[in-house]
């Protein structure tokens, strides 16, 4: 353990001695904080919705959306709406036909078509739409039940409004499609995007740790360490621990910064912290595998960026996993990002605690438990190579 700590401590000391690293630890994450905050923070990101149709139901939906904080435009055809969305001038459209209106009035189940793009902004808009549609549906259910009890429609509506003003709002989708709405339910400000970006960034930044191991090998220090009473596992664990501390500092800094400055909701801090720790451990271990496998710092940084981006995309850090086809989703399970994504989703969307993300934490821990010894084995093999 002393050896591991000595190597980690020396790695950190050398890291901090290089002033240019300060940019990556303290300044760059701050830029990312601002970026995430503007995108996903409490204030920004007003959704732009189109309501197609002119009926009573359409009016109610539009008012509901406006109340929900969206900018609403009315009218036009479905095709117009699709084009507007495709051009990025709106995020989602709700299509209300005359038939829908009639069915709604009669108290029958209604399915409204929602057109949305695939940007994260569109997903947020879709979320707002589904929440509002749920509200509209609930209101109607209430009014209809009052009418059914023999109260005249006008009085029923007035009575309902008084109650609704004090009563709890139920934000559950009863209209529109399916699993997506359910998956994103509770994600009011779409905090998921921030989680995706933290994983992406922390993983990329950790891969830079490969360079530090390669440098130690090139300096001959690693050989010398191993000529002492130190195992390759200890060397790899020490180098990884140093990089882990850097990565965790960066990640925690971004989480705290976006939460404090922009009100991004990260859920239970203990659970989020645990996921971040587990994810940083995998990232640092991957760096050690690269650091033992590759012999050139330049190659390592190139490979690091490439692998970092591909793995992030595959793991749901660019496009949400919910939009993945099944077979791609299966492949994506090899990435740590996938499991971190699921864990953060559990924590931020469904209010999960550490207990709820134990499976994901377990998978991430298992990945570390495989990658670190692999790194050690590769490091041992690298000693027989001329550098």
């Amino acid at each position, binding site marked *: 353990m002393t050896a591991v700590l000595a190597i980690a401590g020396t790695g950190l000391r050398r890291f901090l001695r290089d002033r240019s690293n300060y940019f990556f630890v303290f300044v760059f994450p701050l830029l990312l904080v601002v970026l995430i905050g503007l995108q996903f923070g409490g204030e920004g990101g007003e959704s732009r919705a189109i309501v197609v149709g002119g009926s009573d139901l359409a009016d109610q939906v539009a008012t509901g959306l406006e109340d929900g904080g969206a900018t609403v435009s009315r009218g036009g055809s479905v095709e117009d709406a699709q084009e507007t969305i495709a051009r990025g001038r709106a995020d989602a459209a709700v299509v209300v036909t005359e038939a829908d209106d009639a069915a709604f009035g009669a108290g029958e189940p209604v399915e409204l078509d929602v057109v949305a793009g695939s940007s994260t902004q569109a997903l947020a808009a879709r979320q707002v739409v589904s929440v509002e549609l749920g509200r509209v549906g609930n209101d109607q259910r209430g009014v209809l039940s009052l009418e059914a009890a023999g109260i005249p429609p006008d009085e029923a509506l007035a009575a309902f409004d008084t109650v609704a003003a004090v009563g709890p709002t139920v934000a559950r989708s009863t209209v529109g499609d399916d699993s997506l709405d359910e998956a994103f339910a509770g994600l009011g400000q779409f905090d998921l995007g921030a989680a995706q970006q933290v994983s992406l960034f922390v993983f990329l930044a950790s891969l830079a740790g490969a360079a530090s191991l390669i440098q130690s090998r090139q300096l001959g220090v690693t050989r*010398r360490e191993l000529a002492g009473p130190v195992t390759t596992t200890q060397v790899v664990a020490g180098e990884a621990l140093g990089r882990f501390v850097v990565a965790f500092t960066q990640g925690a800094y971004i989480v705290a910064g976006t939460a404090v400055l922009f009100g991004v909701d990260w859920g239970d801090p203990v659970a989020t912290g645990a996921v971040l720790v587990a994810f940083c451990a995998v990232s640092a271990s991957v760096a050690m595998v690269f650091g033992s496998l590759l012999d050139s710092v330049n190659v390592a940084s190139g490979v690091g960026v490439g692998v970092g981006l591909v793995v992030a995309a595959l793991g749901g850090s660019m496009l949400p996993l919910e939009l993945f086809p099944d077979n791609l989703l299966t492949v994506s399970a090899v990435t740590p990002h996938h499991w971190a994504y699921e864990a953060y989703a559990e924590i931020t969307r469904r209010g999960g605690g550490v207990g709820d993300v134990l499976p994901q934490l377990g998978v991430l821990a298992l990945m570390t438990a495989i990658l670190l010894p692999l790194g050690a084995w590769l490091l041992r093999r690298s000693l*027989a190579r001329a550098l």
Partner: protein
Amino acid sequence: MAAVLACEGLVRRFGDLAAVDDVSFTIAAGETYGLLGPNGAGKTTTISMVAGLLDPDVGVARVLGDPIGPAAVDVKRHIGLVPQELAIYPDLTGRENLAFFGRLQGMRKPDLEARVDEVLEVIGLVDRAGDLAKEYSGGMKRRLNIGIGLLHQPSLLVLDEPTVGVDPQSRNAILESVEALSGEGMAVLYTTHYMEEAERLCDRIAIIDHGRLQAEGTRDELLRLTGEVDRIDLVGSGDLGAAADALRGLSGVERVAHDGHTVTLTVHDAPTLVAPVVSTAVAARMSLADVEVSRPDLESVFLHLTGRALRD
């Protein structure tokens, strides 16, 4: 006395190349053992196996009786390695470098601090201990490199060409400290391609080429292999025959021959005999114009064994 290091039939191949091919030798406590050979002879590969960095393909190296190898973590405590290439962090100070490697050896404060100070003294870096290693001269870096190997007072110190690329002054300082260390009872394995260093430092020397030990022994034993001997040539005038007769009586002188202006002696140990030889010749009324001493050296031994020069 039990050997501190015993190598038994070490073989290490890289692909088709046998970098080390059936190498056996032992080193006792207090003994300095030299591996003398040109670049590519297999010195570093041998040392990598002795220091537990490489597994031999065949054979075994034992340190204080225990087999050494990458997995023999505890045995490595007894070894101090000074690698051929500098193995220090340039962005740490000399003191920080020493303390770091000391901690890896399991040393703790305050013992560690005291020992770091001692070693700084030995390698003459007390004044510069707080400067970053990258600001050191080449010789200072080399000394720091050696200091790290000494920290934990190993039973076996392994030095791989520690003077390569060093100015003559630093080289002398390094050689002196190695001499002092073996005086303290440390077993030293010293590789070099400089025959003067091997001659000066080593109690026994092995000549290595193409991965094989070509010969092993004390310096004198190796020199005897060539069949050459020390020679003293006295150039001058006077009664050279009388001078030659007088010189024949000196002990240590083997044969004496003379021509018109030179008396040639073959002797056992030229350096110690020069003074008596000169005074004897002068007493026999020879007036000397020049004295030339020549002795076979390890260079000639290497040439004799391999048919090539040591430095190519």
